[in-house]
């Protein structure tokens, strides 16, 4: 071996990348050649100097920061989809057009496939770009295409898709995917909504829609929407100033409610929680990821908190719980609390509207004592408030401030539900300043569909 060859191979030799044979060749040469030996030693010294540079150790704080950043990104993304008026219009227009189309082609166009409980979709219309992942490859989605169990269907930005839903080979309804949605068609009457939003109507259920965090919405018949639960997070983040990262990640809460909450959260879930920005005299605690299949953890947590006089807003199968405490009053402003006491979770809060489906029990509270309602009819009474309002530069969406209670209930007829919306005060932010909101109308509603028009007045707080 010549010096030139040896010098070429020295780095590989030093890094231990050579096979036995060339290695021996080099070693033989080095034993006899002083100048190459020097070169070899210098490379070895350089490598050991590099290797001895101290490594950064793993750190909980680093992981926390990264996970929080991801959670914020997630919330931002969802907020982008839901609160951008342009996109929203498009979604609604797309969905309406798709619904019309589905109605036109419905009936005769259903095709039948075998399989007892498996779901499949037949694509009716694609606006924009959609892809299907099947057998390890992506393929473009076109009208008429069948999406089978095990397939994943993904819509791109500014793209919506409509499909017929089949369960066990029988036509079971319609389904619309909003833009940036990822849906896994699973077996067993299940759709896994991994991202984005879907809505549709089921005529032959039950259909299970597993949304963010594995919580399942079961629809037997009627309209459904899913994926909108993230609304809660983003609505609050729009209403309340979005929490910035605290100056010091380990800052301690001095306010008793927070200390208590933080302790309880950690005890129950193992998650540590962080304060948000308190520049608007409000502090927030954001729980991302405290969840359990049936909300057991949260139930314990809620009970514990309720004993402390703190109420929570959360959704049925628990994804995100949030609350805010005013610095002066030390009192929870949001007091909307909904829970499903039996059966599968079929209660969802959608963009400020609250809907209850049959067979559920819910408690919704604004101010005053909690009101309780159990809806046992097979009809689908809807409680819907239109809370969108343009204030200052910001479009605010105010989550439910409804109290409702059953006025009359017996087993033979649908319950009469009274819905009261008055004097509810929730915290809002207008142009970065705290503002008060008063709901001015009170409506008494009866059986069937309940539509609650609400007029909301916004006042800047002095």
């Amino acid at each position, binding site marked *: 071996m010549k*010096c030139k060859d040896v*010098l070429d191979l020295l780095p590989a030799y030093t*890094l231990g990348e050579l096979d036995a044979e060339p290695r021996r060749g080099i070693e033989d040469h080095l034993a006899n050649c002083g100048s190459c030996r020097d070169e070899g030693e*210098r490379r070895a010294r350089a490598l050991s100097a590099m290797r001895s540079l101290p490594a*950064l150790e793993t750190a909980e704080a680093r992981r926390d920061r990264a996970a929080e*950043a991801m*959670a914020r990104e997630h919330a931002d993304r969802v907020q982008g989809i839901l609160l951008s008026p342009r996109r929203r219009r498009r979604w609604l227009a797309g969905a309406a057009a798709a619904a019309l189309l589905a109605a036109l082609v419905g009936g005769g166009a259903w095709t039948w496939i075998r399989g007892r409980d498996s779901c499949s979709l037949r694509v009716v219309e694609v606006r924009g770009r959609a892809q299907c992942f099947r057998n390890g490859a992506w393929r473009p989605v076109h009208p008429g295409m069948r999406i089978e169990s095990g397939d994943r269907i993904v819509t791109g930005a500014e793209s919506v898709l409509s499909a017929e839903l089949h369960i066990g080979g029988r036509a079971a309804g319609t389904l619309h995917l909003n833009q940036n949605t990822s849906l896994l068609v699973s077996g067993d009457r299940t759709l896994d909504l991994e991202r984005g939003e879907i809505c549709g109507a089921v005529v032959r259920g039950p259909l299970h829609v597993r949304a963010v965090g594995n919580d399942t919405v079961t629809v037997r018949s009627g309209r459904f929407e899913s994926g909108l639960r993230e609304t809660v997070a983003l609505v609050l983040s729009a209403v309340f100033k979005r929490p910035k990262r605290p100056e010091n990640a380990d800052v301690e809460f001095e306010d008793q409610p927070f200390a208590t909450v933080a302790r309880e959260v950690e005890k129950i879930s193992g998650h540590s929680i962080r304060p948000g920005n308190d520049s608007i005299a409000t502090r927030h605690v954001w729980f991302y990821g405290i969840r359990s299949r049936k909300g057991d953890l949260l139930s314990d947590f809620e009970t514990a908190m309720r004993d402390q006089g703190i109420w929570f807003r959360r959704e049925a199968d628990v994804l995100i719980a949030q609350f805010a405490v005013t610095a002066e009053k030390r009192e929870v402003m949001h007091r909307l609390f909904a829970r499903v006491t039996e059966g599968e979770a079929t209660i969802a809060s959608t963009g400020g509207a609250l809907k209850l489906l049959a067979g559920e029990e819910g408690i919704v509270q604004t101010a005053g004592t909690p009101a309780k309602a159990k809806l046992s009819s097979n009809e689908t009474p809807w409680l819907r408030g239109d809370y969108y309002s343009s204030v200052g530069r910001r479009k605010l969406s105010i989550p439910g401030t409804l109290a409702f209670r059953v006025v009359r209930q017996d087993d033979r007829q649908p319950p009469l539900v009274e819905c009261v919306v008055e004097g509810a005060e929730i915290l809002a932010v207008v142009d970065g300043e705290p503002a008060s909101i008063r709901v001015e109308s009170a409506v008494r509603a009866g059986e069937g569909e309940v539509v609650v028009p609400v007029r909301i007045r916004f006042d800047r707080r002095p």
Partner: protein
Amino acid sequence: MKPSEVSMQVDSDLLTRCARGEDKAYRELIGRVEKPLVNFIFRYVGERNVAEDVFQETFVRVLRTLPEFRPEASVVTWIFTIARNLCLDLAKTKRRHREVPLDAGAEDREGGVLQFRDVLRSPVPPPEAGAEKSEMERRASEALTLLTPAKREALVLRLYADLSYQEISKIVQAPVGTVKFRVHEALNDLSRLLTGTDRKEATGTE
């Protein structure tokens, strides 16, 4: 044992859970690549505070580009690719605003990479215990910054992230042979930089 073999096995199920917004999944994903990734970034950018920020931003990008991820690709190389691109962006910004040190107020860097503004302005962990660094360590880390970016990234990925040449080749988008050559050249350069010998002397033949 290579980290990529055991600790960095990331299944698509985990990514799905990340896409759903599950906090636990985020932490799992972060935890699996944390050490090699943060050390790669640290040695690449040279400053610990910046490295921590790039690390965090990497995962934001992971989430943002999740829809484009092909399940057949390796999650690990994908994450490293994102981190590497961020480091490159940062280097570009740094070059463009050479007169302003990176740790100066973010306000000074008008026109810089905007995504990094918040990141750089954000609170950072306390500075590392740099004072008691040995002379050799100081020289070694300095030498590292003197390498050309291509050589530095290849070496850093090899030494501090402990990735295979195949993986590095995917991350830096260069053939395996080229990557190997860069690593070897980097070691040659370092040995020269650290022992102060002139290149011609070092490569002189017998």
